[in-house]
């Protein structure tokens, strides 16, 4: 059962990857001459000829497609128009900067969102619950750039505690990480709350309460494990928000990461770089979702014990 589940999910992940690459290929072909798009208008004739030959642009569309797949697998995605370097190198060079705000930001989301959601559920209809839910709704509808600019206004412009942008010291990290944390904590809190509320309403939890088992024990041993399943699912979806968040955050704080590179590349239509980032994000997301599926498989008792058929749904 479990193997079957992982197998279908793995296949699905592969299919999605292929679909993403294919769509990129189609878009690239639709948007004009890929040689000029990738190399830039001022590329030398020789470079363009070389490019056409290596990508098989003089051959049938199927050959081109296969060549494109090859190029993607080899990581040969063209050169940046700006400095003529390999697009893949240019993107990978920015990866550490992005991860250095993404990872702490993600941790912050978990550390803030999950406990806030659990507390809010356990103290339902108290002022604490209302506070958490109201702030989560407000955060949910506040654009990330507004939050980031508010942080800048308070901590950089008014208080002069922290720099308003750039990178280098640890102090530079604080505001971007706070912004990233903000992006998912609200969703997570809201979702965790409803998951925990659901579990609390289940008969076996109520029975445990009636039997006089201490509340903390019930929460730790019964409620949290049961609520983990839906929460893991939403965490997978949140990774997408994290990537989008990086784009905004890095732009506001002039952070030298992939998100800002993407924005500048889009503005200057540096397609080789945009394409590389698109494929990398796509791959990362598909992998992340696959990992979430795995986690889900381990957490879902129906799959673990080989009954039920949630792998069977459309």
């Amino acid at each position, binding site marked *: 059962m479990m193997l079957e589940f992982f197998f279908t999910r793995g296949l699905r992940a592969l299919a999605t990857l292929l679909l993403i690459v294919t769509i990129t290929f189609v878009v690239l072909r639709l948007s004009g001459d890929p040689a000029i798009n990738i190399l830039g208008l001022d590329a030398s004739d020789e470079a363009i000829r070389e490019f056409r030959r290596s990508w098989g642009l003089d051959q049938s569309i199927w050959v081109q497609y296969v060549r494109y797949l090859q190029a993607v697998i080899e990581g040969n995605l063209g050169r940046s128009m700006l400095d003529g370097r390999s697009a893949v190198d240019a993107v990978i060079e920015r990866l550490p900067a992005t991860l250095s705000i993404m990872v702490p930001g993600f941790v912050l989301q978990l550390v803030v969102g999950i406990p806030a959601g659990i507390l809010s559920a356990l103290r339902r209809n108290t002022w604490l619950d209302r506070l958490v839910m109201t702030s989560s709704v407000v955060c949910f509808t506040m654009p990330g750039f507004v939050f980031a600019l508010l942080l800048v206004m308070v901590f950089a412009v008014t208080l002069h505690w922290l720099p308003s942008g750039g990178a280098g010291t640890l102090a530079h990290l604080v505001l971007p990480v706070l912004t990233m944390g903000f992006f998912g904590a609200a969703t997570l809190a809201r979702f965790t709350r409803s998951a925990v509320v659901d579990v609390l309403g289940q008969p076996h939890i109520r029975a445990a309460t009636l039997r006089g088992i201490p509340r903390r024990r019930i929460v730790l041993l019964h409620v949290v494990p049961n609520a983990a399943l839906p929460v893991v699912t939403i965490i997978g979806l949140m990774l997408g928000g994290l990537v989008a968040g990086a784009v905004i955050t890095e732009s506001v704080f002039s952070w030298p990461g992939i998100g800002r590179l993407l924005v500048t590349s889009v503005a200057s239509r540096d397609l080789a770089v945009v394409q590389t980032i698109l494929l990398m994000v796509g791959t990362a997301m598909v992998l992340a979702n696959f990992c979430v599926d795995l986690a889900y498989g381990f957490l879902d008792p129906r799959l673990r014990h080989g009954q039920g*058929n949630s792998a*069977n749904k459309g």
Partner: protein
Amino acid sequence: MPSFLEVQGLTKHFSVRSGAGLFSPRIPLKAVDDVSFSLKKGETLGVVGESGCGKSTTGRLVLGMMAPTHGSILLDGTAVHTRHDAVWRAQRQRMQMVYQDPVSFLDRRLPVGRQVMEPLTVHSIGSSVAERREKAEALFSVVGLRPDQFASYPHELSGGQRQRVILARALVLDPELLVCDEPVSALDVSVGAQVVNLLKDVQLSRGLTYLFISHDLKIVRQVADRVIVMYLGRIVEEAATQELFQQPVHPYTRALMSAVPSLKPHPQRRLSIQGSPPNPMQVPNGCVFHPRCPRASKLCQTERPELRNIAANRSVACHHPEDTTVSSPRKLETI
């Protein structure tokens, strides 16, 4: 007189999963198994049997709503079309269905008048909306609905009125054959009786032929000229209504009737059907009824009884049918 509807060897297998798993094998479910009957114009054939015995499936097959696995259906000499194409659509004008549940078979977001007009719109009958409306309104009076109810929504009508709307929608195309699938089982007894009377009236005035499906033997006795009794997808007994109710010969038919107090052929101890209700995915060998049959013998466990004639217009599928010549079926009591 040649028969109007001729059904030969009708069989429908559904392929269903034997378990809940992704790879659990699909096995065939014989919802209808080798069913044959014929119907004259203007006649009513009752179909009775327990829930799940394949009555509705038979009805839908007859209308060509789905393709049978085997068998043929001839309406007035031409084969009923099952592919949903132009021929199939044209065929809708000759035969229609009256549904069991008047609540769910009406669109709750549309006024009922519009729903009665809809078949005319679908089949482009009538040149204008006004003409269609006129025709639909005429049917409202035929089925006994007030003209002002034309604009009502289904939830504003009573159950009996909704069933009348469904009947009006079925009649608006002037069909010749109606398959009535438990048309009154969702209604109160008195309301149901009114609808049954209405069905009989329209049948007379319009010369309709009915395939009347029901598990209510009393109603079948009222409306049907002949009756077939189904069990696990097969016909176990067929007879004229009169004869069947006076002298049921198949043990299953007898059990069905003894379950209805006023229908007991003779005052006697109540004979309930023994054993568990049938599972159509595990059809027993031999006679399909043998696990529950009080008269079952060794032969019944191995040999499937064929449907055979035992008298004029009367057939039964049983190795040991009740003897029609013995007037009192006392033997049962000793079992």
